[in-house]
């Protein structure tokens, strides 16, 4: 479980998050949704200790992110930020292999290599393993970054807009893998998604943010309703159902 208690955050004097209290349930796929600038990335960065906490308390599986050593946290959660552009010239396999670093600290064993290979395979990167990052497409680079977080093999996986740059087939396959991680692996996943139907189709739990506040939270069926979504995005939205799950339509 990730517990967020009374978290407020300001950047350069401007308040971004206001007294957020919520939980991300263990063993579930949680989707963070909300309009641009709602504070989703900021919240995820605070949970992933990429940003120092200013006010409030966050624990990940019982570890206080403000006080737990950062290398300990790297074995509890993997985080993929929204900005993934990096200046280093690494081969895809080398980048993914760094996902194992929190575990081996420079001495990879056969088990680490196996994990890297699995991660490359899971994201259809084996053919590109020897290519440099600056010699692949945006979607392929994005998949390599996700594969690195995947290789980290932690109980919690936090992904900020992982579907960026992915085509429909890779997006679907990523969601299916995350689902498998939760259902078969007993892991917990939190993702920020913009395409609301990915949350509708795959998420167990949904947290809706707007203006730095939590405006709704609960199961996908509870949160993804016409009234809630229309208000959240300030635009008329229709919600139907497809195979027992909500289907969000914007051509209302």
């Amino acid at each position, binding site marked *: 479980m990730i517990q967020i208690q009374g978290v407020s955050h300001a950047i350069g004097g401007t308040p971004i998050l206001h007294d957020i209290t919520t939980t991300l349930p263990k063993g579930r796929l949680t989707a963070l949704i909300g309009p641009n600038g709602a504070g989703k990335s900021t919240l995820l960065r605070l949970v992933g200790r990429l940003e120092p906490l200013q006010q409030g308390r966050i624990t990940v599986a019982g570890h206080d992110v403000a006080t737990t050593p950062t290398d300990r946290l790297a074995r509890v959660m993997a985080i*993929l930020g929204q900005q993934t552009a990096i*200046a280093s*010239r690494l081969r895809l396999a080398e980048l993914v292999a760094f996902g194992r670093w929190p575990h081996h600290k420079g001495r990879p064993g056969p088990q680490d290599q196996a994990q890297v290979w699995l991660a490359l395979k899971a994201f259809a990167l084996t053919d590109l393993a020897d290519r440099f990052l600056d010699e692949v497409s945006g979607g392929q680079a994005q998949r390599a970054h996700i594969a690195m977080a995947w290789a980290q093999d932690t109980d919690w996986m936090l992904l900020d807009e992982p579907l960026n740059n992915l085509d429909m087939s890779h997006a679907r396959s990523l969601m299916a893998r995350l689902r498998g991680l939760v259902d078969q692996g007993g892991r917990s996943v939190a993702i920020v998604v913009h395409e609301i139907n990915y949350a509708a189709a795959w998420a167990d739990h949904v947290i809706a943010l707007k203006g730095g506040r939590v405006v709704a939270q609960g199961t996908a069926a509870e949160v993804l309703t016409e009234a809630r979504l229309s208000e959240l995005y300030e635009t008329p939205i229709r919600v139907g159902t497809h195979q027992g799950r909500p289907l969000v339509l914007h051509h209302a």
Partner: protein
Amino acid sequence: MRPLPALTSALIALMLASLTVGAADIRVTDAFRDPQALLVLLESRLPRTLSVVLTGAALSVAGVLIQALVRNRFVGPDTSGTAEGAALGLLAITILWPASPLWLRMIAASLSAMVTTALFLAVIRRLPVREVMLVPIAGLVLSGVLGSVVTFVGWQTDLMQYVGTWLMSGEFSGVISGRYELLWIAGVAAGLAWFSADRFAILGLGDQVATGLGLSTAAVMRLGLAVVSVVTAMVVTTVGMIPFVGLVVPNLVARIMGDNLRASLPVVALAGAVLVLACDLAGRLVIHPYEVPAGTILGVLGAVLFLWLLHRRPPRSKPAHG
């Protein structure tokens, strides 16, 4: 052709050549019979060859580190205020305590280099992330300002002659046994960096990824800062700053091998040694028995290589930082 064996062979060949070339007319092969030849070899040729190799290798490794620290390829220890910082420290200790022992001068140079390099890091932290070219420009401006301070103080205190040997012309003609051993410290510092190669590679991926992987970025930054400063300070103290090596060699190697530093740092070190030794040899041969400083030759060659690098950027260059 694999880079490691190719460079090793090139380095061995150049070192042998370096042992045979010099003002004194001796035959290396006579060293076992002729005490005069042995003396020249052990007191002059060998120290000179080793000093060139150590300088080239250590400066190139320092270049990789400073580039990982600032996440920008277009800087080196000669354009990040480091060399000028070392000179400033040397100048200060020379003025305050003219008869200071060597170890103290070495410490003063290293500490002062750390302060000015840390200043550079602090300055670029505040620059907009996407402006890739602002980082090298900031480095050049800082180096320029610090260099002016050094020159001004040097004039005022009549120490310009020293300042010249530290900053203006890196050259190895004065190297004899007993006057270059500090460079071993530079070599050892650069060698130690290899043990943290993964950490520097992860640091180069940006704060976000590095933190996500549980790297304590501040500690790695401090280590990198210390290595870059010590290497540069030793070079400035013994032979004078050699331009461009720390900038050009890391770029050339990264283009071929990428930034997996554990694999590439040894290649970087060898390539740096080969480049500087080739320049030093060329400098000894062009107007034999006189010499052109290796730093001067590198100034020209390095500029050409750098321009070539600028024009041949990677297929899709990405913004620096994370």
